[in-house]
C-alpha cells in the first residue's frame, strides 16, 4: 500500500456536546489507525481505518480547518487543524484508505496479542441441526449444493424434507430468485419449523410444479397441522413516492418477473405480509438517526421530532413484530412457517434469527447466539461485505444497517427481559463493531463461498475466539438460567412505548450524555469480586483443614511429626517433599475432597460450612465443562450457563502443607475490599475515567485500572483454582518477583493439563459428525 506515516501537531479535538472543552494534541496516522493523543498522553483516541465511514472537510474558520471524521461505530470526532494544507492532505489520505479488494482488508494484517491464536472453532451446521433434532424422519441432509452449484450463497449442506427428490430441489431453485430454495433453518421441539427462501420468480402467471411440491413436502413434515404460513416480509402495498425507484416491494417486483407466490397455486397455505421496509429506506432512516445524534444541544422538541421522523424505532418494531408473529405461529399454532423477502438474506435473516431467539432459550446464551449468527447470517449468506461497505468494490447503495437492526432488536429484547440473556450490551456492541472493523475474518465476504475462497480460516483470527478469551467481559451478570424467561419461549408484547433509544450504542463516545454511574459495570465488579472471594474462601478452608490436621497430628504423634513440622524459616525443597509425603499418607480424603459436601465434613469448618453451601456454587470443574458442552446439543437443556466458560482446569491439587510464608503470600495476593468504580477519576496511568469505560479491579490490590493497565495472565496463589486473574501491572511485577511465587507457578505448570476448550469442541463436534455419518 502506498502509504506514508504522518504526524500533524497542534490539533484541537472538540467535544460534540461541550464546545468549550477542547483538547490540543497530535494526530498520528499509521497504516492501520488514526491516533490522536494529547501531550500528557492522558487520553488517546484510536480510530481504525476500516471503521471510518466518512471524512468531511468543514468550512475553514479562524482557528483552523475543521475535519470531521465519522466512523461506522458512531464516533464523530471533529479535529481542528491549524494549517489548511495539512487538513487537505489528511482528508485526501483518509479518503483513499478504503481497501479496494478483499486482500487488503485489515484482518489479513492484524497481529493479535499472544493469547489469541489463529484457532477457528469450526461451526459445523450438522451439530447445530442435530441439537435441534434434524435429521429425523421428516428432514434429511441434502448435499446437492456441495459444489455451490444449486445456490452459491447457501452452505454446502442443506436440510430439506425427506420426501423431496433432487430434481424437485433443482426445479425449485431455478424458480426462486438466485437459486435460494426453501430450506430448513429452525426446528422447534413441537415439530413446527421455520424454512427460509427467496422470492419466487413468479411474475404474473408463472408457476413451478416442483416448488409447489416442495412446499407440500414441507407442510407434511409437521404432523400437528395441515396448513402452513408463508410470510412475506415486504410491505404489500406500494406507496407512491417520488423516489419510487427505491421503493421496491412485493407488488412492484411482480412486474419485474419476480413477486410472491400465487395463492391459487399453493393449497393449504396461508399468506401473511409482515411489512418491513427495504434496505434503502433503512439506510436513510439510519442516516436521519445519526443526524439526530449529531445535533449540537438540541431542544427537547427538536430531538424528539427528529427521532420520530427518522422512524428508526418504528422499523425496529416492525422487525420485532414480524419475529414475534412467527414465534407465535410456531409455538402456539404449531404451524410451519416459510419466510422470505426479496432475496432472502436481509429481512429473512432478521426475522428467522429473531424468532429463533425468541423460541429457543439456547440461542440466548453466548454460545448459542454465536451459533445463531453463524447459521442464519453467515452460512445462509447475508452480504456482510456489501452491507457494511468493507471495500470500495461494493456499491454504496448496497450498504444498509440490516445487521445493526438485528443487534438492536436483540438489545430491545434484552431490555424487556434483562435476566434472559447470557450476554450483555457490550457483547452486542462489539459484535456490531467487528462486523464493520474487519479485524477478524468472520464477517468478511458476502457468503460462505467467499470466505472459503479467501481462506479466512487459515489467514485470520476468529472473532469468537476473541470473545471466548474475554468471556467475562461479555457475560450478563443478571443472567438467571433458572428464571422462566431464560428457559422458555418469549412472547413479548411490543408497543411503540416499549422501545427505547439505544443511548449507549449511538452515543457511546459522548460520555457527557451517558449516566454518570453505571450499574451494569458495578454489577460485573460485584460478580467478579464474589468469584475472587469464593475462590479465596475455598483456599482458606483448605488451609485451615490442613493446619488443623497437622496440629492434631502433632498432638497425637508428637514424635513422628516433630521432624516434619519444622520452623517457619528456611524451607527447602526436601521439606516440601516430606510434607507432601506426609500429607498424602495422613489425609487422603482431603485430596479428593474438592466438593462442598466433603468440605462440610471438615471438623473445624462445620459451623460455617453450612452457610458456605448456600453462598458458594459448586466449583466449575473440567467434567462440568465437558458434560455441559455436549449436553448443549439437546434442545431442552436447561444448564446453559456452563456452556461457554473459560477453560477451567481442574483445580490444582496443592497437596503440600502450607508454610506460613506461603500462607502470607496467599493472603497478600487477594484484596478483600475493592475500590468502588465511582470513586476514582483517573486510572493510575492518568487516563481519565468516564462512566462508560470498562474498568477493572486488580484482584490483588483492589484498585481500579483501565484496560491498558491490567494484565490477565497471572495465577494468583490465593485462589483455589487456576483461572487467570486480572492483576494490575505493578502487582503483577511484585508477585512475579516474590520468591515463593516461582515455586507456586512451577507447581501450577507441572500439575495443570493443557486444556483448550475450542480443541475439545472441535473434537466433540467431529465425533458427533462421525457418529452421524455412521448412523447413515
Amino acid at each position, binding site marked *: 500500500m502506498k502509504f506514508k506515516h504522518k504526524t500533524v501537531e497542534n490539533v484541537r479535538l472538540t467535544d460534540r456536546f461541550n464546545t468549550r472543552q477542547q483538547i490540543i494534541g497530535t494526530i498520528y496516522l499509521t497504516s492501520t489507525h488514526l491516533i490522536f493523543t494529547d501531550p500528557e498522553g492522558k487520553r488517546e483516541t484510536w480510530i481504525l481505518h476500516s471503521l471510518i465511514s466518512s471524512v468531511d472537510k468543514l468550512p475553514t474558520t479562524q482557528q483552523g480547518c475543521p475535519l470531521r471524521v465519522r466512523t461506522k461505530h458512531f464516533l464523530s470526532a471533529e479535529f481542528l487543524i491549524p494549517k489548511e494544507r495539512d487538513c487537505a492532505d489528511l482528508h485526501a489520505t483518509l479518503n483513499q484508505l478504503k481497501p479496494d479488494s478483499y486482500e487488503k482488508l485489515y484482518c489479513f494484517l492484524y497481529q493479535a496479542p499472544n493469547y489469541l491464536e489463529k484457532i477457528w472453532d469450526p461451526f459445523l451446521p450438522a451439530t447445530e441441526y442435530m441439537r435441534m433434532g434434524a435429521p429425523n424422519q421428516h428432514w434429511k441432509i441434502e448435499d446437492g449444493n456441495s459444489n455451490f452449484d444449486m445456490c452459491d450463497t447457501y452452505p454446502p449442506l442443506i436440510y430439506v424434507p425427506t420426501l423431496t427428490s433432487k430434481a424437485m430441489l433443482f426445479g425449485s431453485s431455478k424458480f426462486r430468485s438466485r437459486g435460494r430454495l426453501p430450506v430448513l433453518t429452525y426446528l422447534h421441539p413441537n415439530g413446527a419449523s421455520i424454512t427460509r427462501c427467496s422470492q419466487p420468480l413468479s411474475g404474473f402467471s408463472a408457476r413451478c410444479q416442483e416448488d409447489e411440491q416442495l412446499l407440500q413436502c414441507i407442510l407434511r413434515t409437521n404432523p400437528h397441522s395441515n396448513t402452513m404460513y408463508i410470510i412475506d416480509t415486504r410491505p404489500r402495498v406500494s406507496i407512491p413516492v417520488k423516489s419510487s425507484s427505491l421503493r421496491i416491494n412485493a407488488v412492484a417486483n411482480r412486474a419485474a418477473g419476480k413477486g410472491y407466490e400465487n395463492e391459487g397455486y399453493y393449497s393449504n397455505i396461508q399468506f401473511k405480509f409482515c411489512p418491513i421496509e427495504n434496505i434503502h429506506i433503512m439506510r436513510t432512516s439510519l442516516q436521519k438517526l445519526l443526524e439526530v445524534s449529531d445535533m449540537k444541544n438540541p431542544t427537547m422538541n427538536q430531538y424528539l421530532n427528529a427521532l420520530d421522523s427518522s422512524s428508526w424505532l418504528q422499523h425496529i418494531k416492525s422487525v420485532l413484530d414480524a419475529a414475534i408473529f412467527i414465534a407465535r405461529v410456531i409455538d402456539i399454532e404449531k404451524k410451519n412457517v416459510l419466510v422470505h423477502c426479496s432475496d432472502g438474506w436481509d429481512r429473512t435473516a432478521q426475522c428467522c434469527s429473531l424468532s429463533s431467539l425468541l423460541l429457543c432459550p439456547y440461542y440466548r446464551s453466548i454460545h448459542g447466539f454465536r451459533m445463531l449468527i453463524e447459521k442464519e447470517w453467515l452460512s445462509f449468506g447475508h452480504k456482510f461485505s456489501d452491507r457494511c461497505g468493507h471495500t470500495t468494490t461494493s456499491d454504496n447503495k448496497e450498504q444498509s444497517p440490516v445487521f445493526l437492526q438485528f443487534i438492536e432488536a436483540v438489545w430491545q429484547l434484552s431490555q424487556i427481559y434483562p*435476566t434472559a440473556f447470557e450476554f450483555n450490551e457490550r457483547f452486542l456492541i462489539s459484535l456490531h463493531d467487528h462486523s464493520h472493523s474487519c479485524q477478524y475474518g468472520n464477517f468478511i465476504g458476502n457468503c460462505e463461498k467467499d470466505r472459503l475462497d479467501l481462506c479466512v480460516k487459515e489467514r485470520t483470527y476468529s472473532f469468537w475466539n476473541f470473545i471466548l478469551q474475554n468471556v467475562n467481559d461479555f457475560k450478563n451478570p443478571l443472567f438467571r438460567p433458572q428464571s422462566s424467561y431464560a428457559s422458555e419461549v418469549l412472547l413479548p408484547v411490543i408497543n411503540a412505548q416499549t422501545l427505547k433509544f439505544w443511548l449507549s450504542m449511538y452515543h457511546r463516545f459522548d460520555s457527557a*450524555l451517558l449516566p454518570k454511574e453505571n450499574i451494569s459495570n458495578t454489577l460485573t465488579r460485584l460478580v467478579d469480586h*464474589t468469584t475472587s472471594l469464593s475462590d479465596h474462601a475455598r483456599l482458606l478452608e483448605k488451609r485451615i483443614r490442613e493446619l488443623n490436621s497437622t496440629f492434631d497430628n502433632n498432638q497425637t504423634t508428637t514424635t513422628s511429626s516433630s521432624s516434619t513440622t519444622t520452623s517457619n524459616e528456611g524451607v527447602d525443597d526436601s521439606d516440601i517433599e516430606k510434607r507432601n509425603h506426609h500429607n498424602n499418607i495422613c489425609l487422603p480424603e482431603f485430596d479428593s475432597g474438592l466438593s462442598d459436601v466433603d468440605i462440610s465434613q471438615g471438623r473445624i469448618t462445620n459451623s460455617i460450612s453450612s452457610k458456605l453451601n448456600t453462598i458458594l456454587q459448586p466449583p466449575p470443574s473440567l467434567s462440568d465443562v465437558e458434560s455441559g458442552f455436549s449436553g448443549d446439543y439437546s434442545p431442552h437443556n436447561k444448564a446453559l450457563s456452563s456452556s461457554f466458560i473459560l477453560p477451567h482446569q481442574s483445580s490444582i491439587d496443592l497437596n503440600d502443607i502450607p508454610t506460613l510464608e506461603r500462607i502470607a503470600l496467599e493472603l497478600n495476593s487477594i484484596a478483600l475490599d475493592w475500590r468502588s468504580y465511582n470513586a476514582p477519576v483517573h486510572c493510575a496511568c492518568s487516563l481519565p475515567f468516564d462512566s462508560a469505560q470498562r474498568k477493572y479491579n486488580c484482584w490483588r490490590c483492589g484498585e481500579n485500572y483501565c484496560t491498558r493497565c491490567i494484565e490477565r495472565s497471572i495465577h494468583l496463589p490465593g485462589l483455589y483454582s487456576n483461572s487467570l486473574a486480572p492483576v494490575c501491572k505493578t502487582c503483577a511485577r511484585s508477585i512475579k518477583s516474590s520468591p515463593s511465587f516461582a515455586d507456586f507457578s512451577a507447581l501450577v505448570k507441572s500439575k495443570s493439563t493443557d486444556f483448550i476448550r475450542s480443541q475439545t469442541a472441535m473434537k466433540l463436534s467431529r465425533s458427533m459428525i462421525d457418529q452421524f455419518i455412521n448412523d447413515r
Partner: protein
Amino acid sequence: MSRNFLEKSKIYLCPGKYCGYQNNSTNCGACQRGYRVNTESICQLCHETLSLYNFMYIVFMALLALSFHWYFINRLQKKKQREFTLVKQTILYFLSILEILLAFIFTLLTFPPIGKLTMNVCQVKLLSDFYPMFHNPIVNYRKKLRCSYEVVYPLQSAIFVLYTYASLIMLLLRPLFVSIIHQKFISASIYSALHFYPCLLILHALCGGFIYFSFPILTITSAIFLNAIHFTLIANGENNWISFIRKLCGNIQNWIIYLVHVILLLCGLISLTQFEDEYHLILLPTVFLPVFRDHLQSYPESIVNVTLHNVIITHKQSDGNYKELWIFYTNMDAIQPKFPMKTEFRSQLPLSPSMSSTYTIIVRLKTLETCYFDVSVLDDAIKLAESLDALITYTDGLNCDVTFLFPFCFPRDFEVIQDGWTAFSVESEFSRLQAISDEWRISDVNKNFAICETYPERLVVPKSITDEYLKRSAQFRSHGRFPLLCYLHKSSKSCIIRCAQPLIGSSVRRCKEDEGLVNAMLTQRHKKGWILDTRHANVVKSAQNKGGGCEPDQHYALWKRLHRHLDKHTVLQESFTKLMDACIDQSEKDRWLSKLDNSNWLLHVKEALTTACIVAQTIDCEETSVLIHGSDGWDTTLLVTSLAQILLDPDCRTITGFEALIEREWIQAGHPFRLRCSRSGFGRSTHGQESPLFTLFLDCTWQLLQQFACSFEFNDTLLIELFQHAYSSKFGTFIFNNEKEKLKYNGIKHTVSLWSYFNRPEILHTFLNPFYEPNLSVLWPSVAAQSIILWRSLYLRFYENQIPQREVWDEYLLIKGKEIQLRSYVNKLRQELLELERKCTEKTNMIKTEKDSVVTI
C-alpha cells in the same frame, strides 16, 4: 394485584352487609343492640353524637303525632261546637304539646348517655340500614345467616319509645283534665289517640327508612299544601277580598294553624339544609356479579360495594377465600363509561342486550392505573357510574370537608416506632444549621400564623433581623411569604433563599425592611447575590400591573436578576394529561414519539433540572447566595430549591434526608397539595388549581437517580410510593394545603403521618438501593435532551410487564448480598487461619524448645 389498592385478605370477611364479628366471637352474626358493623366486619359501639338531621327526624315524628292530636281535637270542636269553647280547645292543644314535649325529653333522657338531653347514635348510611332483614345473606346458597338487628340504633327504637311515653303521659294527663272540667266528650280525643298511635307505630316500623330520607321534603310540601287547602276552605264562597281577609284574620284558630304551618315549613327547610350530606350521592350501593378487571387480571363474579370512602370489590379467590380490593374515591381520577349516560341516547342502545354484551365503565385512577367494571345490566351500570362520578366530584370539591377524607377514618394498623409528625421539626433542622453557621435564630413571629398563613409557626431567620422587620417584610411580599432561608451550603456558606414575589406594583413601591432582610442573608457582603425569578420577564411585567413584580435593581443593588421561565398550573397539567394520553394509547397507528413530543413533559423536566443546575452552580462554584421566587413562592420555587438541594447536599440523597427535604421544602413550605393533587393525568380540571408539580419534582429526582445510580440511598420504589401517596393516601401527610390547615383540623391527632409508615424497618428496606455509596460531592447531571428519558417504571408501570424488572431487582439484591456475605466469611476464615497459625508456631516452638532441652540434657 397492584399495590395502590389496599388489600385486605387476612380477615375473613363476613358475607352480607350487616353481619359482623362480635367481641370475642369468631362466628358471623348479628351485632348486639347498640352496635353496628364497620367495614371490616367487626361490631362497633354506636357512639356518634346526635346530628341535627337525626334530631329533626325525631322532632318530625313527634310533630306527626302532635298534628294527629290536633286534627282530632279539631274534629271534636266541629262535633260539639257549643260546649267546646275556645279556651278548652286551646288548653287541649297545649296539653297535647306538653305530652309530646315531655315524652320527647324523656326519650332523650332514656337513651345512652342516660340522663343527658342527647343520644349516641350510629350513622345512617343507606336506606337499607332501616331494613336489615332484607339483607340477610345466604351462605353458599344453603344456610341463611340472620343478621337482623337495629342497625340505625337508636333512631328506630327511639320513635317507639317516644310514642309509648306520649301515650302514657296522655293517659295520665287527659283524664285529669276531663275530671276537672266534667265534660265527657273530651275523652273522645283520648280514644282517637289510642287508635292513631298504633297506626303511627306500624307506619314507622314499615316506612321508617323512607320517612327518614324524605321527611324534610314531606314536611315542606305538606305544609304548603295543607296551608293552601286551609285557605281555600276559608275562602270558600267568599268573593270579596276584604271580607276574606277579615274572616281570615278574625279567627285566632286560623292564626294558630298558619303559625304551625310556618313552623313546619321552617323545620322542613332546616332539615333539608342538613340533608346536604353525601348519602344521596350513592344511587346504587351494591352491584352483584360484574366482572372487574385491570390490565393484568380479571375478577369475574365479584361484588362491588359502593361505600362512603371507597369502592370495595369483593371477589372469591381460587382457594375459596374472599379478597377485597379497596379503591378510594380520592384515588379515582375520571370515570369513563363506555355507554351513553343521558336518557335521550339510551334509546339508541339495543333494548335487550344479548347475553354476552356488557357495559364497561373505565375508571382511571390518580395513581395512573386503569380499572374496568363490566356490568351486564345497563341500569346498574348507569347508576354505578353516576354514583361514582358524583362521589368523585364530591370528594375532590373545594368545599369538601377535609375530615371526611379517609385518612381521618383510617385506624392505624401498625405500631409507630418513630412518629413522623415530630420527626422533622424546625429545631432539629436548626441544630444542623448551627453546626455550619451561628448567624441564625428561631423566631416565633408567626405564632398562630399571624403574619403568614402558609409558613409554619416557628421559622429560622437571621440573627441580626428583629421580628418587627419580618412583619414589615411580610406585608411587602405576596401572601406574607417573606424571604426565608432554605439551604446553607457547608463549604461556601452561601445560601438558597425562597420567598414570594414582592408587591411592588406599577408604582414600584419599596420596603426598606425587606431590603434589609434580604441583604442580611448575604453572608459574604462583598459579593453580589442572584435573584432567580421562575417567570419570564414578560410575565413579571404583567404581574406588576396586578400589584406583584420583581425586585427592582435600583433598590436591591447587591443582587443581580435572572429569569428562567418554568411553566406551572394549567400548562403543566395539560402536559401531564397529554403525556398520560400518549402512554395509555396502545393503538398501532398513532405515533408515540410525536405524541410524547407534543406533551412537552420531558421539556419541563429538562427545564427544571437545568434551572436547578444553575442554582447549584451559583452556590457551589461562584459561592454566591441565590434568592428564588416565582409569583406565590409555593410552586415552581419549591421545585427549584428542592432539586438544587439534592444536587448540593449529600444528606438529601439519603432516605431520611429526602423525607426531611420533602417535609421542609414542600409540606412546611406550604405547597397546596390538596389543591394541586386533586386531579392527576386523566381527569378534567374543576378549579384550575391542579398541577403535577410534585410529580415533576419526583421525575427530576428520578432522572438524577438514573444518572447517578450509586449516589442515592433510595431506589425508585420510594419515588413511586411518594407519587402514589401524594395523590391518594391513607396518611395525613399530603392531604392539607398548609401547616395552618393541618393545625385547624387537628391533623396530627386524627391522622397518621406517612413517615411513620415509611420508617418502619420492613417498609424501609424495600426502599434501599443496594449500590449506594455515599458520594459527598455535588452532582452535575447531564441535561442534554438525549439524557432526559421517560420514567417508564412510573408512567408505564401498569401497561408493561413488570415481572422481569422485579426479577432484575431481586438479582441485584442477591448479587450484593452474596458479596457482603462472602466478604465477612473470608474475614472470619482469615482470622481463624491466623489463630491456627499462631497456635502452630507456639506448638512448634514448644517442641523445638523441648527438643532443644533434650539436646542440652
